[in-house]
C-alpha cells in the first residue's frame, strides 16, 4: 500500500507536467494545424536556459524564472517567424518536417553550448526536501510541479475563455479563412501560439529537470512522452489532455514500480507508448478528441 501511494504521488506530478507539455502540442496544432515535434526540444532548451541563468549567471530564482520564460518565448517567436511563416501554404508535411529538423538544430545547439553531462540546477532554485507521511515520502518538487502545472493550465483555460486574443485563437483553430475574413490577424495568432509553446517549454524544462535532479542532454526524448498524452487525450481537448496526462504519468510510475522486475528496466519508458498504441487501435481520435468525418 505504501508503495502504491508513493508511486501515485510521483505519478501525478509527472502526469500533470506531461499534460502541460502536451498543451504546447495542442495549442500549436489547433491554431496552425502543424504537429510540433520540436516541443520536446523546447523543453530541453528551456531547462538548459534556466540552468544557465541560475548556475552560470548566478541570477536568483525570482529573476531566473521570468528570464527563462522571456527567452523561451523569444525562441518560439523566432521559430515561427523564420521557419514556419515561409512555409504557409505548403503541404502540411513540410512544416512538420521542419519541426523534426528543429529537434536536430536544438540538439546541436545544446551539445555545443552545454555538452552531454548532467547539469544540476543551482542550489536553492527548486525545493529538494521531502515531506514524510508515514512510510510515504513526498518530494517537495513534485508538489510544486503539481501546483504550478495546475495553475498554468487554469490560466491558459481562462485566457482562451475570457480574453479577446484567446477568442481569436479559438476562431483561428476553427477555420483560417473565416478567421481572416473576420479581421483576425491569423499570422499574429500563429506567432502567439508559438510563443505559448516556448513558454510551455520553459515550464516543462525547469520542472522536468527538477524532478530528474538536473538537466540531461536527452531530456527531449523524455519530454516527447508527452506526445502519448496528446493522442491519448485527443488533439482537440484540454480536459482530455489533463486526464490523459494523469493516466500516462500514473501508468509510467506503476510500470516502473511493479513491472520492471519482470519485464526489464526500460518498461516505464515504453509503457506510455504501449498505452498509446492500444488507444490508437480502439479509439483512433483519442479519449476526448473530435471524430472527424471525411468526405471527398
Amino acid at each position: 500500500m505504501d508503495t502504491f501511494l508513493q508511486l501515485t504521488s510521483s505519478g501525478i506530478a509527472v502526469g500533470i507536467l506531461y499534460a502541460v507539455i502536451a498543451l504546447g502540442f495542442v495549442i500549436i496544432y489547433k491554431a496552425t494545424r502543424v504537429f510540433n515535434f520540436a516541443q520536446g526540444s523546447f523543453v530541453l532548451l528551456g531547462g538548459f536556459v534556466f540552468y544557465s541563468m541560475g548556475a552560470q549567471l548566478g541570477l536568483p530564482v525570482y529573476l531566473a524564472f521570468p528570464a527563462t520564460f522571456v527567452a523561451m518565448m523569444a525562441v518560439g517567436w523566432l521559430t515561427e517567424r523564420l521557419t514556419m511563416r515561409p512555409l504557409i501554404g505548403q503541404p502540411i508535411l513540410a512544416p512538420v518536417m521542419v519541426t523534426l529538423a528543429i529537434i536536430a538544430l536544438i540538439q546541436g545547439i545544446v551539445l555545443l553550448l552545454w555538452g552531454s553531462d548532467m547539469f544540476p540546477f543551482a542550489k536553492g532554485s527548486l525545493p529538494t526536501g521531502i515531506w514524510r507521511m508515514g512510510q510515504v515520502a513526498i518530494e517537495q518538487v513534485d508538489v510544486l510541479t503539481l501546483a504550478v502545472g495546475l495553475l498554468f493550465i487554469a490560466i491558459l483555460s481562462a485566457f482562451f475563455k475570457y480574453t479577446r486574443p484567446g477568442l481569436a485563437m479559438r476562431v483561428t483553430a476553427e477555420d483560417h479563412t473565416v478567421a481572416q475574413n473576420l479581421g483576425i490577424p491569423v499570422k499574429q495568432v500563429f506567432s502567439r501560439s508559438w510563443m505559448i509553446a516556448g513558454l510551455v517549454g520553459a515550464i516543462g524544462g525547469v520542472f522536468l529537470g527538477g524532478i530528474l535532479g538536473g538537466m540531461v542532454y536527452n531530456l527531449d526524448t523524455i519530454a516527447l512522452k508527452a506526445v502519448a498524452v496528446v493522442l491519448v487525450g485527443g488533439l482537440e481537448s484540454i480536459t482530455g489532455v489533463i486526464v490523459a496526462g494523469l493516466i500516462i504519468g500514473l501508468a509510467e510510475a506503476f510500470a516502473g514500480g511493479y513491472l520492471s522486475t519482470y519485464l526489464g528496466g526500460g518498461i516505464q519508458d515504453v509503457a506510455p507508448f504501449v498505452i498509446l498504441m492500444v488507444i490508437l487501435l480502439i479509439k483512433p481520435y483519442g479519449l476526448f478528441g473530435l471524430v472527424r468525418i471525411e468526405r471527398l
Partner: protein
Amino acid sequence: MRPSGVFNATYNQDMAIVRTKTQWGMFIGAMVALAVFPLVVSDTYVSWGIWIAYYIIAVLGLNILFGYAGQISIGHIAFVGVGAYVSANLVNHLGFNFFLALPLAGLGAALVGTVFGLPSLRLKGFYLAMATFAAYFIIIYFFNNIDDMTSAWRAWFPQLTGGMMGTFIDRPSIPFTNFVFDTDVKYFYLMAAVTAIMVFFAKNIVRTRVGRAFVAIRDNDIAAEVMGISVYRYKLLAFAIGNFYAGIAGALIGHYIGFLTPEHYQFFEGIWMLGMVVVGGMGYTMGPIFGATVLQLLKFWAVPAVASLAGAYLTFLPDQTLGRVGAASAWMFFALVVILMLIFEPRGIAHRWELFKASYRLHPFSY
C-alpha cells in the same frame, strides 16, 4: 520527357528505362565508375561508399512508404534494427548463410512493419506518425530487454539480441567457397550490387499498378478508395515493402559493423533518413540516391572540416567546447540543410535534376 526526335515505335521502347544511346553510354559509364571507384581511392572513401549505399537502400524504402504512399514513418530506423537482428540470429543460431539470411531479414522487418502498420487502417497523417513513433520505442525496448524477459527459459529460448551487451556477427561469405567479404573493398562490391538490385526494384515497383495505387492513396485516399483501390491493403503493402528495404539495409550494415547493440538505432537516425527523403526529393527514385549521398558527404566531409577550422581559428573558446564542435555541427548542418531545402526547394534535388534534364533535352527551344 523524351529528347526531340526520339519516338517510341514499339511497346518495349515505350517501357524502357534506359532509352537512348546517350543514356546507355551514361549508364554504362556510371557502372564502370562504380566498379573502379574502390580500386582507385583510399579505404576511407570506400567505407564512406558503403555507408552511403546503406542509407540509399534504407531511404529507398522510406521513399516508397513516405514519398509514394504518403505514410510517414518516424521509426524507420527501428526496422533497420529488426533486419540486422534477424539476420544475426539466423546466421549465429541456425547457421544460415548470409545470402539466405539477407532476404529473410528483409521479410522479417517487413512482417514487423506490417504489424505496426495495422493501425493505418483507421489512422492517418499525424496520428499514424505517432503510431510509428510509439512503434520505435516499443521495438527498441524489445531489443534491450527481450533476453531478460526470456532468461527463465534460456534452455529452450536462445539469446536473441544480447541487450546492451550486444551481439557479434561475422562478415558474410559466399557458400561452398572460401571467399569472405572481409575487406572494405570486397564489401563495397557486395553493397553496390545489392543497392543496384534494390534501386532497380524500387524504380519498377512505382511504375506498376501497385506504385500507381500508392500515389493515388497519397494524393487523396478517399478518391483512391472510390476508384476501387483497396486502401487498407495497399497501405499495408507499402509498410511491408518500405520496411523490407529497411531490413535489407540493416542486415547489410550489421554484418559490416560486425557488432549490434540497440545504441546503433538512435531515434535521430530515423529523422536523418526522413531528412534524406526530403532533401533528395519525395517521390522520385533518384531522390534517395541524391539525399543519402549529399547528407552523408556533408556528415563525413564538412563536419570534420568545420571542427578543424574551429580548432584553428576559434582558439578563444574553451577546449571542451571545441571538442564538441564537430558533433554539434553535424546536427546543425543537417537541420539547416533540411529547413533551407524545404523553404527554397521543397521538391528536393531530384526535382531540380528533372528540370535540368528537361531543359537540356529541349535545348535550342524554350518548350
